[in-house]
């Protein structure tokens, strides 16, 4: 048997029923403000909260960063192509130089898409 109470936590301080619960063990980082549940079982008191919002924010930041990286690589590839053409670099040689950059940009975009899919179906 156990008792479950609604609780909040901030800076590792758990509050339930308007009183702080120093005995509570926070099973997450407990730093940011959160709402969760306090489960008391005999002398043990555990605080649970959902980290989904933290994960959502992390994924969003990673997706943005990957998007920027892919755009940067594409821009670098275009710039190199322009410079190479202007400088009269053999198109075959130039293409060989640009292919790895384009492939890297595609990989980064693909990774960003995968993270977007994961973000869309977070549990």
């Amino acid at each position: 048997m156990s008792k479950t109470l609604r609780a909040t936590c901030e800076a590792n301080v758990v509050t339930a029923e308007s009183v702080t619960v120093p005995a509570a063990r926070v099973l997450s980082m407990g730093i940011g403000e959160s709402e969760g549940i306090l489960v008391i079982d005999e002398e043990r008191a555990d605080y649970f909260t959902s980290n989904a919002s933290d994960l959502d924010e992390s994924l969003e930041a990673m997706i943005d960063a990957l998007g920027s990286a892919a755009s940067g690589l594409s821009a670098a590839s275009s710039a190199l192509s322009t410079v190479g053409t202007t400088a009269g670099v053999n198109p075959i040689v130039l293409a060989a130089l640009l292919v790895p950059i384009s492939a890297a940009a595609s990989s980064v975009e693909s990774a960003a898409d995968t993270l977007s899919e994961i973000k869309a179906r977070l549990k």
Partner: protein
Amino acid sequence: MRIVCRHGHIAFYPRYAVEISQFVEYWGVSLIRVDDYFTFAPLAELDRFSLAGLAYGNLTANTTYEGRNPWDVMRENEFVYHIGSSVLLPKSSIAIQVDPTLSSGFWVPATTLVQPGSRNRAGNQILSYSGEYNNHFAELKVSEYSYE
């Protein structure tokens, strides 16, 4: 009717409904049904958990604990029910000495119910006991005392 005191909580287990009504009428108290027993109204309202700093009955709990029954929580908080004033009290505040007499294999207290937290002649604090209450004689025959 069997009376069981566990960690300062008192429960009545009648064999017949009339035993409760007779007891209530004789002693002028109110007993509330909880699960399979009857108890005093303030005890019937107790939760089976406490949060340190939050009210538990008329007192403030000093420990965070969840138990199967209110008497588990009373044990952890070291509270006992005071029969005369119908409130919870810290067990350390009870300064009553009892000296029950032994009769036919049972202990018969001078008062009908033994106040939880009382001390016997040896100085042991009585926190639990069980016995048989006879409505006809308004007498409790205690078969067992426990000091925890």
